[in-house]
């Protein structure tokens, strides 16, 4: 049986989608293990949403193939739709309806009878901590409530594969943690999750494997550990009391940490890639010993920008048409 449990949840070969002259997805090869969380990491315009919409059968590939749970998305879209759920980047619930009505609507479309649909809606509302707002119109919901409802709507029948397109963009830390918790529980339960995000931290927290995409192409793929090995495990941000010390601090940190040092836009700040947190502590101690006063420092995960810098040697850049538009605008002025 082609659709057997041994096939990957998602398998794409040379997947491509062109809008006019724009290559939104430009030859992507992915293989996602069943029961895992896969992170698609990329900046604005990288092609994350387009990839998800191709896999959810909302777009037809221009070239290449995609199999979802063993079914070809172009030839068997019905079979795919029966087993996947999509929580889109932009709220995919009806703002005019109440939270409960939204879930009942989805449940009825999925074939639940009236009473059954209402019971299912109430069960999900309670589980997602939305029972107090169940009878309120969704337009009155906070961002976090809306997201939880949106995810609940995707779980009315538990899907084999869930697409979550930037599920935490714009959420406060508490709501973001709630979403992460839900995703983890879902995977415990056997569902495969394809998650897109602009945050390395999110991909790192949740995903077993991560693909970094840019301009519709995969520029790196692997476990969070391998990805971080190429990027450095963290980034040290240092701020000096006196900007005049910056050159001295740069030389010192470079010697201590052995990696490239960024000079930030802020004339008193530097950023260094850190191979090992223990050496970061030593480096900070060394600056103090050399008489360079540090007002604050922090050790953090590399941001998407830093990942890009490490992987490509240049920062994440706007897509080529944005660039050429900017260039013509500049040329004209």
């Amino acid at each position, binding site marked *: 049986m082609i659709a057997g449990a041994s096939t990957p949840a998602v398998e794409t070969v040379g997947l491509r989608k062109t809008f006019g002259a724009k290559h939104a997805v430009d030859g992507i090869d992915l293989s996602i293990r069943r029961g895992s969380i896969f992170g698609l990491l990329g900046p604005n315009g990288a092609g994350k949403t387009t990839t998800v*919409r191709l896999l959810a059968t*909302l777009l037809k590939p221009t070239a290449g193939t995609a199999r979802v749970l063993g079914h070809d998305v172009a030839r068997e879209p019905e079979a795919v739709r029966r087993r996947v759920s999509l929580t889109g980047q932009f709220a995919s*619930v009806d703002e005019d309806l109440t939270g409960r009505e939204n879930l009942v609507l989805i449940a*009825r479309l999925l074939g639940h009878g009236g009473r059954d649909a209402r019971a299912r809606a109430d069960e999900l509302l309670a*589980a997602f901590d939305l029972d107090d707002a169940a009878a309120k119109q969704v337009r009155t919901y906070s961002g976090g409530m809306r997201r939880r409802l949106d995810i609940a709507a995707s779980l009315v029948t538990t899907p084999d594969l869930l697409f979550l397109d930037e599920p935490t963009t714009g959420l406060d830390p508490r709501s973001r943690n709630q979403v992460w918790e839900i995703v983890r529980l879902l995977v415990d339960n056997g*569902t495969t999750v394809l998650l897109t995000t602009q945050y390395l931290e999110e991909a790192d927290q949740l995903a077993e494997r991560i693909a970094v995409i840019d301009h519709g192409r995969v520029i790196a793929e692997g476990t969070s550990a391998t990805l971080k090995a190429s990027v450095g495990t963290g980034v040290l941000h240092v701020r000096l009391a006196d900007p005049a010390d910056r050159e001295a601090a740069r030389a010192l940190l470079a010697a201590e940490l052995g990696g490239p040092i960024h000079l930030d836009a802020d004339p008193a700040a530097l950023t260094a890639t850190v191979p090992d947190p223990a050496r970061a502590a030593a480096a900070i101690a060394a600056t103090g010993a050399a008489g360079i006063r540090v007002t604050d420092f922090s050790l953090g995960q590399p941001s998407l920008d830093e990942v890009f810098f490490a992987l490509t040697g240049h920062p994440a850049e706007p897509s080529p048409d944005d660039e050429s538009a900017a260039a013509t605008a500049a040329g004209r002025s």
Partner: protein
Amino acid sequence: MAIDTQRRDVGAAIRAALKPRPQPKPAGTVSAVLTFGWRALLKIKHMPEQLFDVVVTPIMFTVLFTYLFGGALAGSTDAYLQYLLPGILVQSVVFTSVYSGLTLNTDISKGIYDRFRSMPVWSLSPVLGTMAGDVVRYTVSSLIVFAIGFLMGYEAATGILGIVAVILLLDLFAAGLSFIFTTLALLVRTPSTVMTLGWMVLMPLTFASNVFVDPATMPAWLQTVVAWNPVALLVTAARGLLDGTGSAALVAGSLVAPLVVTAVFGPVTMALYRRER
């Protein structure tokens, strides 16, 4: 710790809610269309003001025209109300049909379109369901205008049967006509553009007609326009059904336009809704 216990409980509730269970077969075509029709009704329930928006102008016209010009136009306000009310009824329902377009336009510009399209139900059921639900909207519009008319002293010679027949006729006409607005809605960007364009189509149709005055006093060229105006044909048929001078031929004549619109704009709407976006 309290927080930890609470977290574990939430986890347990979510886990329980996600437990695998027998899953029903997705809704069939009819059932999906009806479900989307139910959604349209919920929108009326939550936003009844939309209904009043559309009937308030016609109601103002009814009151204003009847008391201001009624005597001059028809000899007495009572006689004019008898003439005017079927026309106002048509105007209200026809304007209400623009709202079918509004829901579609909002849907395709939001993420909910992607959700519906990614579900295992017939891809056009949201369109047909919305239109089916909107028939209730047309009926409610009719009832509001009738209620105002009765308060002002309107009498339907054919009684309840005539009233029911007119409401059904108006429902059919508006449902057919709304394919123009669903097509518009799938072509333009914002709901307010749908409204503006809708009114631009409808204003001339309802004024260059026999809604307010007997076309006999109009210049010859305008009389020709009125004679071919689908709204005027509908008004004539509706008047006939209410005052007892109607005929099957008049009713059939009034339904030609919505049938043509459905035949032309129905498939266009379907194709536009289904195209990739």
